[in-house]
């Protein structure tokens, strides 16, 4: 019954980090531990040019083995679910590629196969993407400039759970915001299979201009570990809670 489990952090931000360690370095670290980092940069609807500092978005995602996208707030919903799905496929393809290299030797990847074989491999990747379990930790930048985008973020997270819960595999989501009041990140919602109760959780806001993306990412990675430790302590409890809530 043991299926694969994918771990992702989805970072939603509108600016560049200005405090603490380099987020790309933390992302690299996360990737090495099997956690994929996806980053979405949100633009104001009337913003015509890309503001400075948003290049970081792509850097962090690349370091974290994930997908990045810069979008207008109004198209956030579709982007959030697309980025998550794309990153899943990408991770699974990576895994399959590794297996292929072990069987067929180095320099063999899906792209190097003739089209027919590639089709068969892609079917396997798709099956995995449909059935594997997924954990997404959403990390939302709640610094002052994000203020009027938060309702849209909320909608898009609800939409994300709608998309992912249509899959056969199980999902678990949690939401954290940064910068936190005292710590690097604040918990908004603990691990849950469905995100339809998020309507009331977002009003907590911090103001001020600091964006400590690096430390926040590090703290987010620790949430996965914390959970793992807890899980090993009370395996039974967890397996009961893991029932998907359709």
């Amino acid at each position, binding site marked *: 019954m043991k299926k694969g489990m994918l771990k992702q952090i989805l970072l939603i931000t509108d600016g560049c980090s200005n405090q603490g360690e380099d987020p790309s370095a933390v992302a690299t670290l996360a990737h090495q531990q099997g956690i994929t980092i996806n980053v979405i*940069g949100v*633009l104001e609807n009337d913003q015509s040019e890309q503001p400075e500092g948003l290049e970081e978005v792509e850097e962090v995602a690349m370091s974290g083995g994930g997908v*990045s*996208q*810069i*979008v*207008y707030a109004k*198209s956030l*919903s*579709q*982007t959030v679910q*697309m980025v998550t799905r794309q990153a899943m*496929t990408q991770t699974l*393809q990576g895994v399959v590629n590794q297996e292929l290299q072990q069987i067929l030797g180095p320099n063999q990847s*899906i*792209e190097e196969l*003739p*089209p*027919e074989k*590639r*089709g068969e491999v*892609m*079917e396997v*990747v*798709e099956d995995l993407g*449909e059935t594997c379990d997924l954990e997404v930790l959403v990390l939302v930048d709640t610094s002052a400039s994000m203020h009027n985008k938060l309702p849209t973020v909320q909608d898009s997270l609800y*939409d994300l759970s*709608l*998309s*992912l*819960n*249509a*899959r*056969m595999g199980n999902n678990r989501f949690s939401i954290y915001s940064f910068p936190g009041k005292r710590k690097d990140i604040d918990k908004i919602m603990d691990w849950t299979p469905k995100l339809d109760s998020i309507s009331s959780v977002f009003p907590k806001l911090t103001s001020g201009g600091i964006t400590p993306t690096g430390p926040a990412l590090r703290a987010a990675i620790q949430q996965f570990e914390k959970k793992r430790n807890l899980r090993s302590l009370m395996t039974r409890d967890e397996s009961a809670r893991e029932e998907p809530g359709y």
Partner: protein
Amino acid sequence: MMNQPGKSQDIEVRPGTFVTGKWYNRSYRIVKKLGAGACGTVYLAEEGRKHVAIKFSLNSSSITTEVNVLKTFQKVQGKTLGPSLLDVDDWVQPNGNKISFYVMEYLRGKELTTFINEHGHEWLGILVVQLLSDLEQLHHTGWVFGDLKTENLIVTYPPAKLRWIDVGGTTQQGRAIKEYTEFYDRGYWGMGSRKAEANYDLFALAMVMLHLYHPNRFEKGTNPEKTLLSKLQQTNELRPYQSVIQKALYGDYTTSEQMKIDMQHILMKSTHTTTNYSTPSRTNKRKHQVKKTVKSSPPVRQSKYLWEGMGIVVVVCMFYVVYILLQWI
């Protein structure tokens, strides 16, 4: 169609370029660009003298998935579902870049909206019934179309035949819809899940019908369900199909066949009780206008009253019996 201000998947190939496959060496001459989508660009090309459509994508996995879908279509009898697949290959550009592509039959036709505007609104019902038969066939093979939208439908003529052109969203039943467009997605409207089920396609089809008369689409507002219903009621051209569309929006049809039967019923009826909803210019042009008759409605109404009356009598009788019993006790 999808909003990606950050990255553009658009692939520019100059007309006149020869594209030769790496694996099978078939060669195509590019004629012009036909369109660009979320995960690829489609060009019209020639192989010898034959016109074909080529889809290029930087993302070879999306090409591979679409090819897998097209292949399953070809196993289906009749194979009128979607364009037929001719070739799959990689193109190595002179600068060393590798682009995956597949080649399909080129369907020369008009967009659904253009066709209806040019040929008259009476075609809508007919084409929808046709599409429902195709969907029925597709659903029977265990697949759901997914990204059904006006832009993905073209009409080849004559004989008028509605064909779908982009199969990127086609998903096995029971799985999560692979690709969708918000306006046509029931999840976006809060009217259901994003699981691939027959009625997911039927919802999208209902939205296609609405979109024809609201070409600029509309926002979902604070109460999406109410928005949908009021838009439907406001659309005079769709009045004959209103009940069917409403049922499709609510997911009440579990198979395309049920919806098709209801549509056909309306189409057959409308030749008697003519409801000519076409635009005035169109009506003038058409010679065989059917005269308006209202004779078929009274009997319907009479039988409705009859049932209503009987219901009232039964209820009154029941109360009376209860009353008598209570008296007796």
